[in-house]
């Protein structure tokens, strides 16, 4: 709004003295207008000296065992004697404690082992991907990364990555350029038969976070390259469409 229109409006409201021309008086009028119309101001200025929380928003901490006058003096709100009156675990036994009898978890032997190398890849089948593209949820003209898959809820969680699988390969006809962690042989065959391209890209946990949530980082860290022999072998293999295929010098495999 121009200055002229403001003045017209203010004088219409009887706020702007038509005879006055000084800028200073206009300035006061503008302030008064905004104050009276929108009531975002209180009498006196708000600053650090007069802030307070709502009354009743904070309750006083209960001080137990500090004399009879407090009402919580003698037994300190714990009642008389017994397990619950004692110190430790607030009077309650630990979870799994069976009154001194050997606990179930101790009675049964350990079994099996946990493989620290194990990775869980989210399976994604070609029919689902095709449905997502056809319903306009994924743009096939761009390179499809796991972020696009996750954002469009084609996959619901990312775990250690995404593996593209071949269900619906016979009907898959869309040429796409897709980057996933792994792809099955039949998926690679189907995508390439449709004129598309698959790249298997290595991501560690940090890399997945960078990929899916870049806004969480002030400075984007570099993507790590595979360090384990198994991973290096996988991602340098052309058969897996590894992103490092033919770049052995990068991963230190040239000697």
């Amino acid at each position, binding site marked *: *709004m121009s*200055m002229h229109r403001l003045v017209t409006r203010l004088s219409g409201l009887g706020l702007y003295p038509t005879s006055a021309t000084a*800028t200073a008086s206009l*300035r006061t009028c*503008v302030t008064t207008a*905004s104050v009276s119309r*929108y009531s975002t101001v209180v009498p006196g200025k708000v*600053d650090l000296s007069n*802030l307070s929380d709502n009354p009743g928003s904070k309750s006083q901490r209960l001080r137990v065992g500090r004399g009879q006058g407090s009402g919580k003096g003698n037994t300190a709100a714990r009642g008389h004697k017994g397990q619950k009156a004692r110190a430790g675990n607030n009077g309650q036994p630990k979870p799994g404690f069976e009154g001194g009898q050997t606990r179930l978890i101790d009675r049964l032997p350990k079994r099996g082992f946990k493989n620290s190398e194990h990775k869980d890849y989210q399976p994604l089948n070609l029919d689902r991907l095709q449905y997502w593209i056809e319903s306009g949820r994924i743009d096939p003209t761009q390179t499809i990364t796991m972020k696009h898959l996750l954002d469009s809820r084609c996959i619901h969680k990312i775990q250690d990555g995404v593996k593209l699988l071949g269900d619906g390969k016979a009907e898959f006809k869309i040429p796409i350029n897709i980057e996933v962690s792994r792809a099955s042989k039949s998926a690679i065959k189907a995508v390439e038969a449709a004129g598309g391209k698959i790249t298997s890209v290595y991501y560690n946990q940090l890399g997945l976070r960078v990929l899916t949530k870049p806004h969480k980082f*002030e400075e984007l860290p570099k993507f790590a390259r595979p360090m384990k022999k198994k991973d290096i072998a996988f991602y340098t293999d052309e058969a897996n469409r590894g992103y490092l295929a033919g770049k052995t010098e990068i991963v230190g495999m040239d000697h």
Partner: protein
Amino acid sequence: MAQLGLKAIAASRFSTFTSTRAEAIETTTSHTTPVGQVPSQQNEQEGPTATQNSDNSFYTPLQAWLRDFRTNEPKDMINLKRQVFGAPLRKDILHRVVVWQRDAERQGTHSTKGRSEVSGTTRKAAPQKGRGAARVGSLRAPQRRGGGIAFGPKPRDHSSELPRKVQEMGLRIALSTKYAQDQLVIVDDIVLDSHKAREFEKIQRQHGWDSILVVAHQENENLWRATNNLQQVDVTVMQETDVLRLLKYQTVIIDRKSVRYLEKKLKI
């Protein structure tokens, strides 16, 4: 960051936005009439208008003067988003944000020595029996002179937590409070010819600005050097605007790009 020094580093702990996110914000868009031009019909369409901001047909944007930094002369009018600069006053929210900020500012380096840390002998002070007096063990027990402190302060982190949405609401309220109290001066651009405090103080005296916070859209070497030694003046970049300093200083000088940035970041 390096330019703005310690003040900025301290403030950055309370920054709600990261620099990466800041870059993504387009700050170059001008919503007001270019300087020296007569506002045309087309220019009036820019900035917050009734149709684009609210489905309420009674919506009117807030307005403020766009001033010249050096002369303080009004150059133009600027439309402000009501969500950000016209929020209802909530003193309780401001209080919570200020307490949260000041909690985090505490160094927490206070320290006392307990009975195990006070230096001195660990020998039993008197025999357990046969003395005809009370039993005495350690000479460094809390009840003894020179003994340790019972339950004394130890270094710890005092910082508290506040939901991000409350932090952002606090910023909206603080900016609105400044606007409503006529303590918000919106300037076209903050330009200083020299890095001398003398020049800045001259401008300050001219406008009658007592204690001020300058919010600039980017780091400004001249501005920082000129104000670094002035007790009543603080400088911040727009990404690091915080409630405590908005309220601590009487007047807030903010440039147009920062206004647009904050409007975009703080919109609901």
